[in-house]
């Protein structure tokens, strides 16, 4: 049974909007300097990758819910509601086209922390069920199986035995006070 819905996503976005977010959206003057700093834009030349544009659904929600003008516009039917399709479209923007590197936040002349807001909009988009497939898969496997790759304890123990046989290194499991700490990494 799933509870991922548009309403859930919108509700979480509403929670996420705080005073800094409101100040940031009030201050953006559409100067485009954030795009000059964003590698996703500079390497592709696609203006859609302008960092502040990646936040458009959340900005519209802020306007509609948290400003007097926006509330009035909503009352008289002049505002565009956030749609499920929109959140779906924006998923790529905030997950695949942003690494939260923060260059945009560093250059914004009015002092907007855009990557801070990208992190927030991800909360809403994932709650609405639009997180990227790969991330959903990895998260599900990590929680249900024990690792994002889906490796079970049995396979890990087998690998530990193989390592001990070939190198003599003992890999302790759940032992207190040991000297070495081993971590596994994917083997190609």
């Amino acid at each position, binding site marked *: 049974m799933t509870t991922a819905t548009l309403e*859930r996503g919108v509700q979480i976005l509403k*929670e996420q909007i705080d005073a800094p977010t409101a100040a940031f959206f009030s201050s953006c003057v559409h100067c485009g300097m954030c795009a000059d700093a964003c590698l996703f834009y500079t390497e592709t030349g696609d203006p859609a990758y302008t960092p502040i544009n990646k936040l458009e659904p959340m900005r519209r929600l802020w306007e509609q819910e948290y400003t*007097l003008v926006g509330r009035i516009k909503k009352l008289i039917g002049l505002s565009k509601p956030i749609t499920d399709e929109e959140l779906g479209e924006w998923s790529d923007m905030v997950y695949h086209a942003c690494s939260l590197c923060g260059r945009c936040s560093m250059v914004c002349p009015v002092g907007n922390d855009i990557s801070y807001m990208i992190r927030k909009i991800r909360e809403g988009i994932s709650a609405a069920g639009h997180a990227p497939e790969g991330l959903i898969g990895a998260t599900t496997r990590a929680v249900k199986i024990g690792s994002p790759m889906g490796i079970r304890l049995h396979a890990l123990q087998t690998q530990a035995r193989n390592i001990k046989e070939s190198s003599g290194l003992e890999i302790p499991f759940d032992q207190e006070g040991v000297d070495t700490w081993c971590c596994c990494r994917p083997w190609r």
Partner: protein
Amino acid sequence: MNNDKTLGEALREQGVSRRGFLKFCATTASLMALPASMVPAIAKALESARRPSVIWLSFQECTGCTESLTRSHAPTVEGLIFDNISLDYHHTLQAAAGHAAEAAREAAMEENKGKYLLVVDGSIPLGNPGYSTIAGISNLEMLKEVAEHAAAIIAVGTCAAYGGLPHANPNPTGAVSVEEIIKDKPIVNVPGCPPIPVVITGVLAHFLTFGKLPELDHLGRPLAFYGNNIHDRCYRRPFYDKGLFANTFDDEGARKGWCLFKLGCKGPVTYNACATTKWNDGTSFPIEAGHGCLGCSEPNFWDMGGFYNALSESTMDLSRTAAVGIAAGAVAGAASGLLNRRKKSQAVTAHETVTVNDLQREEKS
């Protein structure tokens, strides 16, 4: 009230030489921006003009206009021309009084029906006809009665032209201008508080020469005298342009003759001939004497925001508006802010933890 003599005859009798007369005509022509070729026409018209009958009605006024126009320090031709129109009715200058004066007026109106000039100074109170009466007749009634058969009306002074001082906030007498009452006669406004003497004689000369009133601006003023604003002809303009202003009366800037903008000069929006023609035969004018222009030839000049407040300041109390705005904004803002908090806390309360089972949409799982 002898109308047999022509204007030319009357002037010669008073010792005005032909040369002096022509010089006046040339001056009048140039003041009115008429070509030099018009001078003979003006001379001929004035020479042979029958002294026109002029009825001067004084309503809610201070007599300043009469003082200005009849002031002659030395016999000037303007003054003589003025003396040589047939001034058939004028409170200050007439010899008659009481019933005799009113009778003279009525006789002049009858004899010159359709041809006399009506000059008005002072505003007309509409609040109560009893506020200003002459011989028991209200200003309003007398104006309508005399205007009916006048050839044209000259509203002398800002009171007659636009309401002037009595019209100033809160206008307790309900004062209005001539043109707000008379709609069917040609009216020339000669505003100023008071107006410059030569302006009215120029208007008269034009009327006598051409039989009609001179070209007027959108406020009914003769363009020849009110076509430029004081600012554009002010000798202190270079200081304005450079940004050199007197800060107080008698400070260094004031003594150096710098611009009086900061001391409330309304020159930029005042149209009159003061800066060029000046007063008292070209002696001086207010700005030259060190005081900012009051804007006295403009409508509502008493309510233009204060004589000593700069033109860029508001005519109303801005700080009060700002204070009220901040208070009202604080209240409205607090209300809107509280709405925001409530909406947000509702969203927080409704929060359900997103588990790994909630990441997929129904149709995808």
